[in-house]
């Protein structure tokens, strides 16, 4: 059973995953399984023997400081980086050997909104819909619904080059959701979004995983969002998973009483060491 960490759920909660056991998304029903993943850039080890699982109906938050290895992990899932070791499987499909099958099942929002600047959002989404072989009605209906929700109507025919970062992020979110993928992989998806859109996204993600068998991997360093939204979190530090589970479980393990996720994070990554001194030093500047 998936249990949301806390506080009291803002959104619809999936209480029972037994209904999703037969979802036909691949040879396996588990949205994401990462086993012993290693990512190396030149001589730098970015991810070291990382193992985690995103269960059906689960939003899994991958937390970490800058350079912790979150984006590297995500890039392996979506086929942008080849792992130096380990395995990544999406509904049983291997991310390296069956990358096309994986890409068909994943909706991805990158951390930077580097898009086809010369296209308009409509032209870009039309390209994505074509590559994903969507039918005209579904693609158009979804594009209309999401664009209206994100208040994108006025910018739908403007070149992406002329759009703000937040608007580009909305376009990327729509592109990721257009084919209603069983696994959403979101790399800092709420960056640059206005409060209204953040609220919509939170609500949407909570409802999204409530539909049979879907999962969400969500990377962020905004603790508040993770605390509100994620069923479980994994804390990544310099490529190593320092802790994983519900926030209650992590508190228990770290013996931190009712500490906030931020405090837990700092404790587990040992980034609280010297924190006071650093703040005092800044005050003196």
């Amino acid at each position, binding site marked *: 059973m998936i249990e949301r960490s806390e506080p009291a759920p803002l959104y619809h909660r999936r209480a029972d995953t037994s209904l999703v056991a037969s979802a036909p998304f691949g040879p396996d029903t588990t949205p994401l399984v990462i086993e012993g993943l290693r990512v190396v850039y*030149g001589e730098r080890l970015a991810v070291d023997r990382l193992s985690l699982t995103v269960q059906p109906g689960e939003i899994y938050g991958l937390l970490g400081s800058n350079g912790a290895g979150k984006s590297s992990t995500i890039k392996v899932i*979506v*086929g*942008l980086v080849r792992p130096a070791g380990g395995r990544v499987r999406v509904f049983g499909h291997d991310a390296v050997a069956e990358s*096309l099958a994986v*890409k*068909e099942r*994943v909706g*991805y929002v*990158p951390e930077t909104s*580097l*898009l*086809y*600047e*010369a*296209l*308009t959002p*409509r*032209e870009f*989404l*039309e*390209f*994505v*819909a*074509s*590559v*994903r*072989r*969507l*039918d*005209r009605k579904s*693609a*158009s209906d979804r*594009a*209309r619904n999401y*664009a209206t929700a994100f208040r994108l*109507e*006025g910018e*739908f*025919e*403007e*070149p992406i*080059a*002329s759009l703000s970062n937040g608007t580009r992020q909305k376009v990327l979110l729509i592109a990721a959701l257009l084919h209603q993928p069983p696994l959403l992989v979101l790399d800092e998806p709420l960056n640059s979004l206005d409060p209204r859109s953040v609220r919509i996204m939170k609500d949407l993600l909570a409802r999204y995983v409530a539909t049979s068998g879907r999962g969400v991997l969500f990377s962020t360093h905004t603790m508040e969002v993770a605390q509100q939204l994620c069923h479980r979190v994994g804390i990544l530090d310099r490529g190593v998973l320092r802790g994983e589970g519900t926030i209650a479980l992590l508190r228990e393990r770290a013996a931190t009483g009712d500490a906030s996720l931020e405090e837990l994070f700092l404790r587990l990554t040992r980034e609280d060491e010297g924190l006071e001194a650093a703040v005092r030093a800044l005050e003196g500047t």
Partner: protein
Amino acid sequence: MRMGWREAWRLTDVAFLELSLQAIYASRQGNLPPPIPPSEVARTARGRVVQSKAIVATVLALLVAGACLLIKAAPRIVATPFFGVPVSIPVFEAGVLTGLLTLEVAFLWWTGLQVLPTFLASAVLPVLEPLPIDERTLSRVAGLLYLRLFDIPALTVLVVTPLFLALTLGPAYGLAILPGAVAAVAFALALGLLTGRFFVRRAQGSRGGGGHTVVRWAYLVLWVLPAFAMFALIVVAPGFLALIAVTTSHGPSVGVDLLAASFPFSLAALPGAVTSGGGVFGLDGTGSAVLALASLGYVVLAAGSMIWLLGAVRRVGLAPPLVPVGAPATRFDLVPQAPARAVLTKDMRIASRMPGYAFLVILPILDAVALGLFTFLSGPAGSTTTFGLALAAVSTAALLATFFGPAFFATEVIAYAYGRTLPLTDRSILLGKVALVAAIYLVAGALVLGLTLLRVFQPGIFVAFVLAELPAVLAASFLELGILFRRARAKGLPIVNLYSGAWYAVLVSIPGVIVAGAPLVAFQAVGRSGDVAGLTAMAIFAVLELAVFAPFALGPGGA
């Protein structure tokens, strides 16, 4: 903070390295970092930019060498009249130099059109803008940055043109062409920026939708048209020379004075006028004064262009796309296509807002129109010439489309990091690119033959030629793109990184052009025994090529 030229140059050093990185690796456009050690990245980018500039400079040097060889052979060439018009040696020399200066302007301008979008996309100037640097220094940095994009090619024009001419006709001649070379460089750089500014304001910010797309392509055609002069000039050079000869042969007249005042003839005729007097061009005292004043005026204009350039680069570099005012009619209707066709549509849409790519589409088509117009104006001929006209038309369309084909691979560099996360197969990408090349060939072929049909109504022959060559164009594209894909696999590199080596882009076009040209050669070889037999041989040859090269590209090891 007020800075001098030295500080501006030092800042340019840093900014140009970033510009080189973006030009080669395009990370700001969404490309992935290259799979080489980080310490090598800057050095490789800098090296490849120098390599690209050296290629442009070599072409320019070859143009000068070719002009000098023509001038050297002038006595033999002018022995035969041009279109029945006798041409004197000084007029021939001035004509050749007019052509050379035009080509230098056009080629540098064309280079500017290719690099300006990269310059803008690199966002080097927006990074510098918030720093505490005074406006004048920023303008200087921007101007110097732009000039450094052209340094080796521009120096080649400024040094090689006078040097080669001095070696061919003497030092006075070499010295007298120097104002022409200076003006050619200054005008080309200024025109590149002016047209770039026009592009930024009108095309890049244009909305989506059918009507806007048509207007955008019309802008792009207008914008590219002058750079097309170099190709048009090659086609019409003999007729142009005859026109100059006719104008100058009747002695002093308003026509000669107008010619003396026109660019680049005035500067091209200056060496002849300085060494032999204006009389060799039919100029009297007034005409010679016009020539001198016009030459001086163009040099002053060139100096003005350079001063304008130094200030204008910053404004262009920071100008956002000009988005039309008023709420657009929003259309949510998405029309998904087959993936390969979607790649084609995406490339066409990108090209319509990026002049570097638009040029690749428009150039073969414009050249076909020029050839068609030339045929239309020069008049009809007999049956043999009908086959000859069709052959010339198809050759132009096929070879240009094939030569520029691999360049479309480079559109994949845009948003590469995102595009690779979509379930898009290499086969779809390859088929989309091949379809684009085929479409360019067919449009170019249809235009040239459409114009030719107005004078020589032989639709059966013309259509047969276009269709007979089509499999060879497809085969050539499959071969070029197949080589790129295979090499990418062998090296384990993202396909687009291969294209950033300019030498490779040129090399991969060579076998393609050979494949596209082989059936045309087969036609000529067999055609002696009958044109229909030649056409049949051409078609069979083309189909055989397609049967060989399509599996090469799409089969095991390919896409």
